[in-house]
């Protein structure tokens, strides 16, 4: 009997200490549902209590039900039989359980059958589920699809599709990638054409589609014949019928429970979602940002699981007459893991909260047009933060999870390399997180603009003005030192006005910026708890040197590899 929420004091720390008042007010539209739905929150305290209770249910299902099935799901995996995808038994059972617990409409409004949870809670839920079985998140986490229909679909589409998602009757997939359009989604070639009756028909192939076997897919297709760029692409809602065939599923290193499909569309009927030509530039970007947050949460869940495995093993394994966790080489690895998990979690929830506020403001302005003038400035600001923080946390959390799994396996020594321990599965599962929904390298591309434009400093100013850091003065001094170094490196790069130079150093700058923000967030956590002071101290004392090393390299103006890499990798 274990509850993956209740046994994790760090998640509880955040839920208890985060100021979610604005998120709740926006998400609940000032409690407009309270007399209409018996399960609607009545006020702020009630909403927070509901959040806690929902996580209790998720935690119990994750600990008692999903986790015990994870190893078997990994061994069997999703299979492809007679042209159809079959989930592993454990996956089916877990989905059925989540469905019965009415958790499949997690973020959707109550009027469509959802439970109207904010993204912050969704991130927590995904983290908890991924700790139990990372592959299940790929299906549970696809609620983004319904969310996209909610945000951009017509009223009729919302009425027809959303209740089916929330009841668990249908699952979704997002069909974006093609054999020759991976990171470069502008080169999508799958064709969408209207037939003589005005019915849209899809023709072509999608590849690497997570859960492509789902009943409902959002398919990105070229609707403008002869066009080449992103503007010729629209997004379609496709419901399974015989004109789409799953050709195969991939055999992968990890997340075996999640089927990765190749879909062949032969004149398959679909309906346009939203406006024509906005498929990539508007809807897919929004969809992917949601999915990136989900992957970041998944990565934190895997890292948490890996840390716990390593900790348990190190505590019980005795060598040279003492437990191996007492050796510096091991306790440093364990402490680094824990510190980075907690730092990443702070950044994850901060990002989720920013996204909640941004989406909440959009919804409020839609529901109450009279608020538009007052809220416009706020929306712009939060839009900017969301655009920076989302790729940042995706890159940071996924790289962190990989490092954690690497070290956690190392702590196990030889047995970690065998299938007898869970760590080898976690190690394999983590590896996809810094690849899908955009590789780390692409997240850097998405984040660098905000870093160069000074969005980081803007947000840090808010942290400075909203908090009194005087009780953690040593810590905040180090964080400010990181900030100063970052700002001078950013101005150095800006002054050069050299796009190639900026591109070459982008990853270093984004990583330094992420470390700086995380340092600030840990200082903020340290205001509440003495233990967090130590966490912040452990983080900052190393981050200081890590960031310096990276930024010194930027400041050195060395770009040798840029110039002569062709001589070496010729």
């Amino acid at each position, binding site marked *: 009997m274990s509850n993956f929420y209740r046994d994790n004091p760090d998640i509880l720390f955040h839920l208890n200490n985060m100021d979610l008042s604005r998120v709740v007010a926006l998400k609940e539209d000032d409690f407009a549902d309270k007399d209409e739905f*018996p*399960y*609607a*929150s009545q006020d702020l305290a009630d909403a927070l*209590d*509901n959040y806690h*209770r*929902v996580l209790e*249910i998720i935690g*119990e*299902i994750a600990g008692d*039900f999903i986790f015990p099935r994870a190893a078997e799901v990994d061994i069997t995996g999703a299979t492809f039989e007679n042209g159809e995808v079959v989930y592993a038994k454990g996956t089916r059972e877990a989905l059925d*359980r989540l469905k*019965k*617990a*009415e*958790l499949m409409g997690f973020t959707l409004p109550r009027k469509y059958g959802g*439970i109207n949870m904010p993204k912050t809670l969704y991130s927590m839920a995904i983290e908890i589920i991924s700790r139990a079985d990372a592959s299940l998140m790929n299906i549970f986490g696809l609620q983004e699809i319904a969310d996209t229909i909610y945000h951009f679909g017509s009223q009729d589409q919302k009425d027809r599709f959303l209740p089916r998602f929330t009841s668990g009757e249908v699952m979704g997939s997002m069909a974006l990638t093609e054999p020759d359009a991976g990171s470069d989604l502008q080169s999508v070639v799958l064709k969408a054409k209207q037939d003589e009756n005005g019915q849209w028909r899809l023709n072509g192939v999608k590849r690497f589609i997570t859960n492509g076997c789902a009943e409902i897919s959002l398919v990105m297709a070229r609707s403008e014949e002869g066009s080449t760029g992103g503007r010729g692409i629209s997004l379609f809602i496709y419901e399974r019928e015989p004109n789409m065939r799953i050709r195969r599923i991939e055999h992968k290193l990890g997340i075996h429970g999640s089927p990765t499909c190749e879909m062949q569309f032969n004149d398959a009927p679909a309906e346009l979602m939203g406006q024509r030509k906005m498929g990539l530039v508007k809807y897919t970007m929004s969809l992917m940002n949601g999915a990136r947050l989900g992957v970041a949460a998944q990565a934190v869940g895997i890292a948490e699981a890996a840390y716990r495995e390593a900790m348990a093993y190190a505590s019980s394994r005795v060598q040279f007459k003492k437990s191996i966790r007492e050796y510096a080489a091991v306790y440093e690895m364990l402490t680094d893991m824990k510190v980075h998990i907690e730092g990443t979690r702070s950044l994850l929830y901060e990002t989720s909260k920013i996204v909640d506020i941004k989406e909440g403001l959009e919804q409020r302005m839609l529901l109450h047009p009279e608020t538009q003038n007052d809220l416009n400035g706020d929306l712009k600001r939060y839009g900017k933060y969301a655009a920076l923080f989302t790729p940042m946390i995706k890159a940071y959390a996924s790289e962190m999870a990989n490092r954690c799994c690497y070290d956690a396996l190392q702590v196990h020594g030889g047995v970690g390399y065998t299938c007898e321990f869970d760590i080898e599965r976690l190690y394999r599962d983590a590896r996809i997180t810094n690849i899908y929904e955009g590789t780390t390298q692409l997240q850097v591309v998405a984040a660098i603009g905000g870093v160069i434009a000074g969005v980081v400093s803007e947000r840090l100013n808010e942290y400075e003005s909203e908090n009194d850091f005087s009780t953690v003065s040593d810590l905040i001094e180090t964080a400010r030192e990181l900030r100063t170094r970052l700002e001078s490196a950013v101005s150095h790069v800006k002054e050069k006005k050299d796009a190639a130079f900026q591109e070459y150093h982008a990853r270093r700058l984004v990583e330094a910026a992420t470390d700086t923000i995380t340092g600030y967030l840990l200082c903020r956590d340290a205001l509440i708890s003495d233990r967090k002071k130590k966490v912040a101290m452990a983080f900052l004392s190393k981050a200081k040197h890590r960031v310096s090393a990276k930024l010194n390299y930027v400041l050195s103006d060395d770009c040798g590899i840029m110039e002569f890499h062709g001589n070496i990798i010729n």
Partner: protein
Amino acid sequence: MGLKMVVTVKQVPDTHNLSGDAMKPDGTVNRNALPAIFNPEDLNALEEALKIKETIGGTVTAISMGPPKAKDVLKECLYRGADEVILVSDKLFAGADTLATSYALKCAIEKVGGFDLILCGRQAIDGDTAQVGPQIAEKLKINQLTCVSEIVEIDERSVCVKRSVENGYEIVRSRFPVLLTITAGANEPRSPSAKRVMAYKNVDSVVCETAYDETWFNPQSCNNVSRIREWNTQTIDADPALCGLSGSPTKVKKIENVVLTAGEVKQIPNTDAGIAGLIHELIEEHILG
């Protein structure tokens, strides 16, 4: 219309985590020293009822006899999908053994009336008697199928079940009304529903002095269950002499603390003679045979 089902549930001390003060000097359980939980096999009984409701339709009424705190398990029933819940609570019920308990539950079930199926957990983890279910059936003069590990078939008039018996199982059928006691192996109980938890977390009990009134009961909507019905001896027309301590012939004569500790280790040679010697010794000590 579907079936009308009654599930009996009990709040029990969590005997997985026993501490030194688990028993009071008078030999009864010290309920304050142990966390109170939903008796595990009662959850299995509730799950079977909910599954039947999902397949052929019907209503599920959960009844618990216990102190006011037993409302917690009734709320858990609401969270999982019970249509109505009733707390049978009265100071006069205190100190009840299985006979007095089954009498009180029988009276309450008669008040609910018109039932097709009664589902009980096989036994509670505090007393481990497995008597209450069968006694309720006897008192109601209806069939009983105990130790049910699977419901093989069910329709509007009868149920066919797999019963665990010594060294195997048997498959038996009974017409309604019938009482089933369900074992842990029958199913894996569902988790609470998020919506129902949020809807029912604040429900409280309402004491009903008057007789059962059917009009409040509308299982179609979870909106309508906004409270836990609380019945006492009068509401269920129970004879106080048959309730609680006065209705309980069972008296605890003596309690003994048995502490299992490892004794000496004996090595038996892996030979025919060695094994024969061991068997002989075990028969001598009445452990075997």
